[in-house]
């Protein structure tokens, strides 16, 4: 337990203190949100309608951009070899690293989203549901990104490949994430079904992604 906790704090600290980890992801998110109105025109009604979609797409892209860091540095300097032979099962190590990505990158992205929503004229009333949906869905984002990161370990130009591998897996998260904010069936309780599905997607990813990532890491270390 203490080894797991130590690994988690180490990874979160590294992500925060290392230059160009969390900050770059947030900056990238900002840039994506800023260029969208420039491409679509400044019509505030249109922006308000598509704001949830843009915020989700930007979040997914920013998470993907930072996903390579989940395992890459530790793979390059040999830490991953040590962890693989250490007391923790490799799947637990992989899960903790994905969790660290969620804590260090996923949560800041969720926290900055309402602020970026202001730029897109996102109605104030939908901010709570946006935050809830993102909090429920981003664990799935981080853990699925972990699968992609472990599969592309040590490859050249792995960033683009990682996006190609992981984006299809993000389709359900994106669909239910957006529909929790703009319910197709309007009503006071319409947010709950997509929200529960997001939770389910996250839970499934938390259980299965570490297993897949551990198998992929073992394959890369061999």
């Amino acid at each position, binding site marked *: 337990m203490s080894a797991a906790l130590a690994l988690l704090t180490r990874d979160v600290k590294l992500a925060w203190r290392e230059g160009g980890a969390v900050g770059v992801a947030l900056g990238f998110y900002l840039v994506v949100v800023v260029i969208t109105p420039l491409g679509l025109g400044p019509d505030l009604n249109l922006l308000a309608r598509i704001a949830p979609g843009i915020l989700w797409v930007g979040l997914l892209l920013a998470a993907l951009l930072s996903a390579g860091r989940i395992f890459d540095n530790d793979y390059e300097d040999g830490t991953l070899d040590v962890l693989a032979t250490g007391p923790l099962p490799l799947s637990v190590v992989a899960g903790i690293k994905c969790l660290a990505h969620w804590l260090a990158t996923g949560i800041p992205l969720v926290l900055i989203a309402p602020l970026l929503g202001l730029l897109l004229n996102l109605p104030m009333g939908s901010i709570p549901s946006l935050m809830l949906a993102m909090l429920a869905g981003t664990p799935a984002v981080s853990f699925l990104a972990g699968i992609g990161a472990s599969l*592309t370990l040590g490859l050249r130009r792995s960033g683009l490949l990682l996006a*190609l591998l992981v984006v*299809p897996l993000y*389709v*359900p998260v994106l669909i239910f994430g957006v529909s929790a904010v703009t319910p197709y069936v309007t009503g006071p309780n319409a947010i709950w079904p997509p929200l529960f599905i997001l939770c389910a997607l996250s839970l499934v990813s938390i259980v299965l992604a570490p297993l897949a990532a551990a198998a992929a890491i073992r394959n890369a270390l061999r």
Partner: protein
Amino acid sequence: MISLANPTRFLGLVSVVLPWLSALVVILLGTGLYLSFFVAPPDYQQGETVRIMFIHVPAAWLAMFGYTLIAIAALGTLIWRHPLADVAAKTAAPIGATFAFIALVTGSLWGKPMWGTYWVWDARLTSMLVLFLLYLGLIALWQAVEEPGRAGRAAAILALVGAINIPIIKFSVDWWNTLHQPASVFRAGGPTIDPALLTPLFVMAAGFTALFVLLHLIAMRAEILRRRVRALQQTEVARAAMAEA
């Protein structure tokens, strides 16, 4: 399956089967195309465009069949380390991707006269497009990793992750938007398609399946030979290096 683990035996079997299978493909596709274009009546609503179905539907089935095959082969790679499983999965991916592409293109051409547009973000179209993207990801992963053994295991992991995800993706896009007609061949209470259209469809489906198997066997043979050449080259290089030293 186990006796086929010997690639030489597998190659022998392939060379026996190939001529018969080729003949079967020619007969089935020839009959199927004749039935589709000359025998099947035009639909009372869709007119002649219904004939696109005879290409479109089998291609879509085969695209899904290809992914299923890859997922089963992935189990073979990871669990039993069957030496041919990786070869089977790797060579099935481009074929499956091609069938997915054919299904998308014919669907798009069919959509123009029927729905008035080449592309709609309908659930089935979207899930077929996502399947196509999964195929592209698999192919890209195989090409990005240089060592074949490592590439095979990485792709097998990805294929299994994709296989778990496909039902979820399918369910989510179904929930998202549905315009495509519901399943009309394999459904409780029998097919909703007239037998006059159903017979050519099944002949074409059988022909496409045989074509898939034929292309797959040829591709597997090529891949096995390619790996042998690679192994020979490596021993050659090693020998040259030894001689120099």
